[in-house]
């Protein structure tokens, strides 16, 4: 009932409470900043015309949004032509080649050939392609909210592409594990990540075995991952599963719970690369005892016991609260108000973790629309670059340059080694070096801006930039400074580039 009232308030552009209401255009721009990667020129107006809540509903129903232009662009990316088995084979060859060169270099004392040959080069290039693909999708997909959620979950269930086999496991993780479930049910996503080879390798579960267990045959490939001769349970995944993926650090679990969860996942592993590197359950490695987690008894039941645990964790109140608060930090404010978090938790509870229902609860919460939160959040580097590209009408190409730009601003995609993923908060992204890099990025993107015509009259030029790039939200101070800078510039091309560069690199555009 509450959410319907809130929806009606928004539909009539009456923000609840005493604060002055957002205009329909401001509401649309706000929604585009948070639920999409910023507005393309004119988009705030077109969304306002459709009605912001109707637009949000369309975005939640992503499968019914035609996206043919993106589909055409995706065909340029050869990484999408390879499945996990292809990549696994190529990776194995590259590793063998590198080891051969290492042995040669060690034998001859000459490492120069190693540097020249770079057997892993292909994987570095594929990694770059994967990053650029993320940028192309975020920039041009019509299914904007889904792309935002893909980024959110990729970060929530972070996997570091630089860790060994994850160099070849990450593409299928993104394509097959995260993307199809980004607007689905949390529980399904959680199970899919738990079973994904990428996560099994990243958090070492692939090598976690019951103490004293031994494989029926030789097991050299499994040993490679890490703990070597001394084998037993590995708690890494179990700990991060509860601390980061589900309950949260204050979620009430104990070290004994961590150990018991690790025991439940013993045997969850990865096939050898020449068999496709898919998920495999090794019964021989599984801890056959019964386990207790958070006071709940789990009878030993092979692989199913882990699935039951994941479903149990996915629907704990602590999980609902932890993940909802994280969603609200992304969509509402770095320190989200309780109201929107409570609304999200209620929707989660009611729908058994339907992500779309949870998102709907957040965007119909009055907290989402209060003027205090509007344009009060700093964009992450990825959001900043993609929103600038969209506003300036720049077509992202398949070279890694935009991905490199995002990396220079401090957020190299898929390259966060820590399982926490990247932070959502301003303090993490704003430092003097990163800000200078944002200014540089603004200047570079401005050179390719196609969304602003050349105009001789400076006041008109600045007004166009304000309207088309920022939906009329440019601050008077920014306008004044840009106009001052233009006074001695006669060439309209130069004036445009300078003005757009200052606008994109300036403080207003850093916010969403």
């Amino acid at each position, binding site marked *: 009932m509450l959410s319907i009232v809130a929806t009606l308030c928004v539909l009539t552009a009456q923000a609840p409470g005493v604060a002055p209401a957002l205009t329909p255009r401001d509401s649309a721009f706000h929604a585009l900043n948070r639920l999409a990667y910023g507005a393309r020129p004119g988009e705030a107006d077109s969304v306002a015309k459709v009605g912001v809540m109707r637009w949000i509903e369309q975005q939640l129903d992503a499968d019914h949004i035609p996206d043919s232009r993106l589909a055409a662009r995706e065909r340029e990316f050869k990484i999408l032509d390879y499945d996990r088995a292809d990549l696994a084979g190529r990776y194995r060859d590259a590793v063998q080649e590198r080891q051969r060169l290492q042995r040669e270099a060690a034998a001859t004392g000459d490492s120069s050939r190693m540097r020249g040959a770079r057997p892993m080069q292909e994987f570095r290039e594929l990694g770059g392609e994967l990053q650029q693909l993320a940028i192309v999708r975020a920039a041009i997909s019509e299914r904007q909210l889904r792309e935002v959620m893909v980024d959110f979950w990729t970060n929530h269930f972070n996997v570091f592409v630089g860790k060994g086999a994850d160099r070849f496991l990450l593409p299928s993780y993104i394509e097959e594990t995260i993307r199809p479930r980004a607007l689905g049910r949390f529980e399904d996503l959680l199970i899919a990540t738990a079973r994904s080879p990428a996560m099994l390798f990243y958090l070492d579960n692939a090598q976690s075995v019951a103490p004293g267990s031994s494989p029926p045959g030789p097991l050299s490939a499994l040993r490679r991952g890490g703990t070597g001769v001394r084998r037993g349970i590995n708690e890494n995944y179990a700990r991060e599963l509860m601390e980061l993926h589900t309950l949260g*650090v204050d979620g009430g679990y104990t070290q004994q719970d961590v150990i018991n969860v690790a025991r439940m996942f013993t045997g969850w592993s990865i096939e050898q690369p020449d068999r496709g590197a898919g998920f495999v359950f090794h019964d021989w490695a599984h801890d056959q005892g019964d386990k207790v987690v958070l006071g709940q008894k789990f009878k030993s039941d092979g692989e199913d016991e882990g699935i039951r645990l994941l479903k149990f964790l996915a629907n704990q109140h602590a999980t609902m609260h932890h993940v909802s608060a994280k969603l609200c930090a992304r969509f509402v404010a770095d320190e989200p108000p309780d109201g929107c978090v409570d609304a999200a938790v209620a929707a989660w509870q009611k729908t058994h973790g339907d992500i779309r229902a949870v998102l709907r609860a957040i965007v119909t919460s009055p907290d989402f629309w209060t003027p205090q939160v509007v344009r009060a959040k700093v964009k992450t580097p990825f959001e900043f670059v993609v929103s600038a590209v969209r506003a300036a009408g720049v077509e992202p190409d398949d070279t890694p340059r935009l991905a490199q730009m995002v990396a220079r601003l401090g957020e190299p995609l898929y390259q966060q080694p820590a399982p926490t993923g990247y932070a959502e908060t301003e303090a993490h992204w704003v430092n003097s070096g*990163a*800000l200078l890099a944002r200014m540089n990025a603004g200047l570079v993107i401005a050179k390719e801006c196609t969304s602003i015509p050349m105009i001789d009259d400076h006041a008109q030029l600045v007004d166009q930039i304000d309207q088309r790039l920022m939906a009329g939200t440019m601050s008077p101070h920014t306008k004044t400074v840009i106009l001052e800078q233009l006074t001695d510039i006669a060439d309209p091309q130069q004036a445009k580039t300078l003005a757009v560069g200052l606008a994109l690199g300036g403080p207003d555009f850093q916010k969403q």
Partner: protein
Amino acid sequence: MTISRRIFVKDSALALVSFGLDPLFLPRAVFSPYRRLSSLTVPYRPELVCLFQRGAVDGLNMIVPHGEGAYYQERPRIAIPANDVVDLDGHFGLHPSLAPLKELWDNKSLAAIHAVGSPDSTRSHFDAQDYMETGTPGVKSTADGWANRYCQHDREHADTPFRAVGFGPQLPRILAGSAPSLAIDDLQAFGLRVPQEAARDRLTRAFEELYDGAGTGLLASSSREGFEAVQMLKRANPTQYVPAGGVEYPPGRLGKTLLQIAQLIKADVGVEIAFADCSGWDTHVNQGSSDGQLSTRLRELGLALAAFNKDLGERMSNIVVLTMSEFGRTIRENGNSGTDHGHATAMLALGGPVNGGRVLGRWPGLGVEQRFEGRDVAVTTDFRDLFGEILARHLGATDLGAVFPGYVPSPTRFVGAIRG
């Protein structure tokens, strides 16, 4: 003309700030005797350079306990043969790839600290690195790094944007926090990347004015620090840098980073703490012995440190370089001729203030009953005691309790890394 106007604008902005408009900035404006002097004189200013060997370096093959029989028994394939070890004191020796550092050992400016590490038993890289950088082993929720907390609490030097610099695209955890610190990926490219100087100055000024109007938030204060840094670097003009005495840094990222740190220190812009990563130490497979994987990494490290030392010359009398790594590796080699995640490791301290020419810390021995959990080198020096000693005795920190919450590094536990 442009420049003097810029300085005028900046100074008046600072005056405004020091009347109390920006709480974060105020204390720094109050304690700012150094700023005005920066291009004129070089006061004594101790500097600390930290290198994080990410991936957990094998301390036993870096500083080799060649006098210990167990070392050879446990590592039949990867131990450094006694003939190859560069002996230091009859019991320990350097990996042969670190031979370039022997000279520094001999002149007493290089010390090794053995069996140092974390009281937390984690063998997760993530957790252990995090603990070493936050300075709070076992506590994951710590938001800031210990180097930043030092800067927060010892503010009397805090007057330059270059006080704490992390080399890399992102600010490392160790420098994260409320005290200003700077991430520099490439010194040459720091600031606006506009080829023409006049255009660059103009754009810099324009952005500066834009951000001056951004109020008092983090965007405003961070941008102010950024522009100040650009201005100081411009005056210092480090673009034409040539290392002293024909020193050549080894190729690769580490050499390039140390060269830039040397450059920044010599530019006298007020560096107090510089931090850089140096990766590739997670040697689970084919670690190698005198040659091989680890040897290659150590060679680069040794050459880079030796070059840095020579390049800075006299200035090394004010500098301490400290290596650190999240944990050590197993005493016994594994089935893949490598080593797995262990516990204590070794760290190197280099520089004039270092009490060099000795292996510091209590050596626990490698006997089975002396090991941690029956397999790893036991920790006899909590890393906070080592870091704390360097902060207190070298940088002059006065409040170590605030730097390492929940722990007070005690002088009685200091290993004596810094000369008295």
